[in-house]
C-alpha cells in the first residue's frame, strides 16, 4: 500500500495556502480553496476506506526522532470530518467573506489550519504532533485577528497555556515510556505521580482546545467580533474534533483511564459543571452569536462527560455527540452568519420575523437547533441518549455519583432547548423588527446558493445521522473507533429511529388531515387584534427577556450576578494566581537585583578609586612603572 497518500492532506492545503497568500485575485483564492478542500475531502475518504496506513521517514539524525504518520479508523474519521468542514466553510466563505479585508490572509490561514490539523491527527510521533498542534495555535491567532487583535491574544493565551501543558505532559510521557512513537505507548496505567501528572497535563492541553470551562472565555468574546465562518470552523467544529481526538487518544490509548477512577470523576465534574454553567449563561444572552458561543461551550461539557464515563457506550456516545455537535454548531454559526449578512446584526432586540424572508435558513436553523436540543428522531437525541446510557452503565460499575452527572446532563439538555426556543423566536418568528424594514435590501431576501449549500448540507446530515443512526454514524464511524462497543440492541432498548420517524411522519399526516377536514372554510388572515391600536415595530416581543425570571430566581440570581461581574471567568482566577506568583517573583527579583545593584555600585566605587590614582602626574605614572619592574624582578630573580 502506498502510504505517502498520508502526506497529501497535510501538504496540499499548506501549499494552496501559500499560493493564496501570494495571488491577489479573489476568485482564484476562492476557487483554489474550495477545490483543494474538496480534494482533501476525497483524499480523506479514500484514506478512511484504506484502513490502516503508516508512513515513516527518518527526520532528524537522532534516534527516536522520525517523521511518522499513521492512519487508522479513528484518525482518518476525524480527518474526513476536518476536510468536510473545511470544504463547507470554504464554500460558504466565497460569498460571505467577499467584501472583507485581509482576504489573502484569511484563505491562507484557513488552508494552513486544515493542513496543520490533518497533520496533528495523522501524526504518529509526539514531536510531529506537537509541531502541528503548536502551529494550529498560531494560526488560530491569525484567524481570530481578522476580528480583533484583543480577541486573538485572548485565544492565543488560552491555547498557549494548553500547548505548554501539553509539552510538559509529552516530556513526562517520554520519561515514562521512553518513546515518542504514539502507537508504541500502550495504555499506561494511571498509577504513580508521574503518570497521573502526565495524564492531567495532556488532558489540560486537550480541554484547552475544546474550550471546556476554565478555558472557555475567549469563545463568547470572539463570537461578537470574529467573522462567522471562522467561528463555525474553529471553536465549533475543528477545535472540538482535534481536541476530543487528543482527549480520547490520551485517555484510552496512551493511558488507561478507568471508569469511576478519581481522574475520571475529576473530568466528570469539569464536564457537568461546564454543561450547567454554559447552558445557564446561554439562556440570558441577548444576541444569537453569543448564545451560540455558550451552547458551543456547553457541548464541550457533554463531550467530556461522555468520554469520562470510560465505558464503551459512553465513549461511543461522546464521539457520536462530537460529530453531531460539530455539525449543528457550525450549521448554526453559519445561520448566524447568514442572518448577519442580511440584517447586519444578530441582536435579538433588532431581528425578528425572518422566517418569512429566509425560509431555507430558518429550516436549517430549526433542524440543527432541534437536533441540538435532543428532539427525536434527529441526531442529537440519539447521541445524548448514548451518553445518558453511558452514565447509567457507569453506575452499574459502582460509581455513586452517577445521579449528579445524569441530572446535570439532563438539566443542561432542558436549558439548551429553552435557549434555542428563545433564539428561534427572537430571530425568525414574531413580528418583524425595524431591521427588516430599514436594512434588508429588497433584492437579497434569502442568502445566495453558495451560502445555502453548506447550511443545507449540515442540516441534512443532522437528519440523516438521526434517522439512520445505526447504519451510518454508528455502523460506519463509531463502531470502528470504539471496537468494544456492544451490539446496539443490547443497550438501546426499544428505540427504533426508523420506526419513530415513520410514526412521527404518520402523526403529522394525520394532523394535517384533521386540520384540513376541520377547517374547510376559507381562512381569513389578519393582524392580531390589540384593542384597536396599530401594531408598530416598537411593540414587538423580542425574546430578549424570555428568561429574565430565571435570572431573578433566588438561587440563580447570585450565579448570574457573579457571571456579570466576570467572576465565572476562570481566566481571571488564573490571572489573579499569576499576579500572586508575579508578586513573589518580583520580590525575589528585587532581592537579587539589590545584590546586583550593590555589586554595581561597588564596581563604580572601585572605578572611582582607580580614578584617584590617575592623577595625571607624570612622576607617579613613572613610579608605577618602576614598581611594576621591581615586582617582575622579584618574581623572576627569586
Amino acid at each position: 500500500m502506498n502510504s505517502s497518500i498520508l502526506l497529501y492532506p497535510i501538504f496540499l492545503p499548506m501549499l494552496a495556502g501559500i499560493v493564496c497568500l501570494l495571488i491577489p485575485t479573489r476568485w482564484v483564492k476562492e476557487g483554489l480553496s474550495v477545490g483543494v478542500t474538496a480534494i482533501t475531502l476525497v483524499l480523506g475518504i479514500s484514506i478512511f476506506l484504506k484502513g490502516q496506513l503508516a508512513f515513516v521517514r527518518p527526520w532528524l539524525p537522532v534516534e527516536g526522532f522520525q517523521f511518522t504518520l499513521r492512519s487508522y479508523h479513528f484518525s482518518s474519521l476525524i480527518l474526513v470530518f476536518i476536510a468536510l468542514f473545511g470544504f463547507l466553510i470554504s464554500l460558504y466563505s466565497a460569498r460571505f467573506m467577499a467584501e472583507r479585508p485581509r482576504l489573502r490572509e484569511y484563505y491562507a490561514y484557513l488552508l494552513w489550519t486544515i493542513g496543520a490539523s490533518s497533520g496533528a491527527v495523522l501524526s504518529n510521533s509526539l514531536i510531529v504532533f506537537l509541531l502541528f498542534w503548536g502551529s494550529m495555535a498560531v494560526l488560530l491567532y491569525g484567524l481570530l485577528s481578522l476580528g480583533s487583535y484583543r480577541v486573538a491574544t485572548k485565544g492565543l493565551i488560552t491555547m498557549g497555556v494548553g500547548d505548554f501543558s501539553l509539552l510538559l505532559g509529552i516530556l513526562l510521557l517520554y520519561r515514562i515510556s521512553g518513546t515518542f512513537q504514539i502507537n508504541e505507548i500502550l495504555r499506561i496505567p494511571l498509577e504513580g505521580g508521574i503518570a497521573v501528572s502526565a495524564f492531567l497535563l495532556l488532558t489540560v492541553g486537550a480541554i484547552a482546545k475544546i474550550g471546556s470551562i476554565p478555558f472557555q472565555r475567549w469563545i463568547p468574546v470572539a463570537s461578537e467580533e470574529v467573522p462567522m465562518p471562522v467561528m463555525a470552523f474553529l471553536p465549533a467544529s475543528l477545535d472540538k474534533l482535534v481536541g476530543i481526538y487528543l482527549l480520547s487518544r490520551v485517555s484510552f490509548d496512551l493511558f488507561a483511564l478507568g471508569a469511576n477512577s478519581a481522574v475520571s470523576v475529576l473530568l466528570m465534574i469539569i464536564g457537568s459543571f461546564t454543561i450547567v454553567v454554559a447552558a445557564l449563561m446561554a439562556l440570558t444572552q441577548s444576541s444569537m452569536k453569543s448564545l451560540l458561543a455558550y451552547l458551543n461551550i456547553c457541548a464541550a461539557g457533554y463531550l467530556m462527560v461522555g468520554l469520562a464515563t470510560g465505558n464503551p457506550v459512553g465513549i461511543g456516545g461522546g464521539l457520536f455527540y462530537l460529530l453531531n455537535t460539530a455539525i449543528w454548531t457550525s450549521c448554526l454559526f453559519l445561520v448566524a452568519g447568514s442572518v448577519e449578512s442580511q440584517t447586519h446584526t444578530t441582536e435579538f432586540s433588532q431581528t425578528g420575523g425572518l422566517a418569512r424572508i429566509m425560509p431555507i435558513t430558518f429550516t436549517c436553523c430549526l433542524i440543527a437547533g432541534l437536533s441540538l436540543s435532543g428532539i427525536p428522531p434527529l441526531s442529537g437525541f440519539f447521541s445524548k441518549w448514548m451518553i445518558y446510557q453511558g452514565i447509567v452503565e457507569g453506575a452499574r460499575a459502582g460509581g455513586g455519583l452517577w445521579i449528579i452527572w445524569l441530572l446535570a446532563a439532563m438539566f443542561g439538555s432542558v436549558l439548551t432547548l429553552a435557549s434555542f426556543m428563545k433564539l428561534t423566536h427572537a430571530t425568525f418568528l414574531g413580528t418583524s423588527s425595524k431591521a427588516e424594514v430599514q436594512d434588508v435590501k429588497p433584492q437579497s431576501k434569502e442568502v445566495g446558493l453558495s451560502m445555502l449549500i453548506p447550511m443545507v448540507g449540515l442540516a441534512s446530515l443532522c437528519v440523516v445521522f438521526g434517522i439512520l443512526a445505526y447504519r451510518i454514524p454508528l455502523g460506519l464511524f463509531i463502531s470502528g473507533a470504539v471496537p468494544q462497543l456492544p451490539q446496539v440492541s443490547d443497550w438501546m432498548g426499544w428505540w427504533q429511529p426508523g420506526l419513530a420517524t415513520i410514526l412521527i411522519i404518520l402523526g403529522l399526516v394525520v394532523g394535517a388531515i384533521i386540520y384540513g377536514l376541520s377547517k374547510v372554510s376559507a381562512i381569513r388572515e389578519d393582524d392580531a387584534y390589540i384593542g384597536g391600536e396599530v401594531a408598530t415595530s416598537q411593540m414587538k416581543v423580542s425574546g430578549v427577556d424570555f428568561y429574565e425570571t430565571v435570572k431573578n430566581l433566588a438561587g440563580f440570581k447570585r450565579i448570574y450576578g457573579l457571571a456579570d461581574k466576570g467572576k465565572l471567568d476562570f481566566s481571571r482566577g488564573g490571572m489573579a494566581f499569576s499576579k500572586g506568583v508575579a508578586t513573589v517573583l518580583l520580590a525575589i527579583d528585587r532581592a537579587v537585583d539589590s545584590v546586583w545593584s550593590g555589586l554595581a555600585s561597588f564596581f563604580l566605587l572601585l572605578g572611582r578609586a582607580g580614578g584617584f590614582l590617575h592623577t595625571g602626574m607624570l612622576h607617579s605614572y613613572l613610579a608605577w612603572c618602576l614598581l611594576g619592574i621591581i615586582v617582575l624582578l622579584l618574581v623572576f630573580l627569586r
Partner: protein
Amino acid sequence: MTLIPLFMVIPLGSAFIVVLLGRFKETVSDVLATAATLMLAILPFALIIPLSQEGIFVYRMGRWIPPWGINLVLDGLSLLMLIIINLVAFLAILYSVSYMKKFTAKSTYYGLFLLMLAGMNGVVLSGDFFNLFVFLEIAAIASYALVAFGVEAEELEASFKYMVMGSVASVLILFSIGLIYSLTGSLNMAHVGTILQGQKGNLISFSMILFLAGFGLKAAIMPFHAWLPDAHPSAPAPISAMLSGVLIKALGVYAILRIFFNVFGMNIQLSWILMILGALSMVGGGLLALKQNDFKRLLAYSSISQIGLIMLGVGCGNYWGILGALFHLFNHASFKALLFLNSGAVEYSTGTRELKKMGGLSKAMPFTGATSAIGSLSISGIPPLNGFWSKLFIIMGLIYAGRYVLGVITILVSVLTLAYYLKVQRYAFFGKLGEGLEKVKEAPPLMCASMVALAIICIGAGIFFYPIMKIILEPAVRVLQEGVGYSSLVLGG
C-alpha cells in the same frame, strides 16, 4: 619573495612625496596617501595563498645569509598583523580625508601617518632586534607628533607624557637588546633563539623583565598603561583609531608574542605573569572605563581592558587561548577603530566629547548611530558579531587550561564591557536629542564609508568566523605553538 620590502618602501617613500607635493595642492596628498594605503591594504591578501604553500618567507637584504645582515621574515603571525595594520590604516586615511580638513597642514599629517605605518610594518616584518627597535622608534616618534597634532595645551601635555613614557620604554628595550647582544653576540632573533635555547641565568631573566616592561609600556598593560588614557583621546580620531586599534598591538603585543614565544620560549612562570597582568589590565581597565564621561577616554580605558583580555588568552598558551587572543587582536582592531571613528564623527558634528552633553544622536546621525551600536555590541561579545567568537575562544582556552576563576572573571568583565558601552549608547545615541544639537548633521560620506566598512568587517568576521579562523588565524597560531622552532625555520629557509 620580493614583495616584502614594499610594506616599508611604499609608506616610507610616499611619506616624503606626500609632504613635498602637498605644498602645492592638498588634494594631491589626499589621493596619494589613499592610493598608497589602499595598495598596502590589498598587498597582504595577495600573500595569503603563497604563504600557505611556503609556510615562511625570509627576505635577505643584500643577499647576506641570516645570522648576518638584515633580514625580513614573513610568517603567519606577521601576515595577520599586516592585514590588521594596513586594513585599518586604509580606512583611517579614508576617514581622514574629510575629518582632517579642520586641521591645517594636512600633508604633514599624511607624512607622519605614513611614517608611523612604515614603522609598524617594519616591526612586524623585521627579523632582528635592532631593526625591530629602529622601526619601533620610527612608529613611536611619528605617533608622538601625531598625538600633539592639534597643538592645544591638552594635546601637547598628553604628547609630552606619552613621549616620556615611550622613551622610558625605548630605553628599557634598547638596554635589553644590548644585554642580549652582550650575552649572545648576535642580534638576529632566530640566531639568538638557537643560542639561548636551554640556557638559564639571571641576565637572561633580567633582559626578559626589561623586554616585558618595555613592550608592556608600549602595549599599555597595567601597571604600564598610564600614558594611554591621556594620549589616545587627545589625538585626532583617525589617529586614535590607529593607536588603539593597531599601534599598541604591533609595537606591544606582537613584540611580546614574537620575543617570548619564538626567541625565549614560553614557560609556566611567563605564562602566569602574562595571565595575571592581563587579568589585572582587563579588570582595571573595565572598572576605570565605567566611570568615564568622555567618549574617547572611555574608549581608551576600554582598550586597556581588551589588551588585557588578549594577554590573558595568550598567557593560557593552549590552542583555543592563542586562537582567541589572535582573533580578538583582529576584532579589537576592527571595532575599536570603528568606535574611535564614531567618536570622531560625533565630535566632528557636535563639537563635544562629553557623553552627557549628547543624546538622541542616532536620529540625527543614522550611520554613526547604527555603526556604533554594531561596534558596541561586538566589543561586548554579543553573538553573532565577531567579538563573541573571540571571547568565547579565549574563555574556552582558559577552561581547557583549568583556569576556571579567570574564565569566570572574563565573563564578568564581558558584562562590565556591555555595561559601559550601553552607557555610551544611552547617553550619546538613544533617547531625546540633546539641547543645542538640533542642527546636527551626519558626518561627510567618506567618513561614513569607512565606518560602514568597519561595521561590515565586524559583522562579516562574526558570521564567517570559520573561514577566517582557518585561513588567517591558524597559520599564526601555528607560529606561536611552534615556539622556538621558529629559529630553525628562519635559519634553515
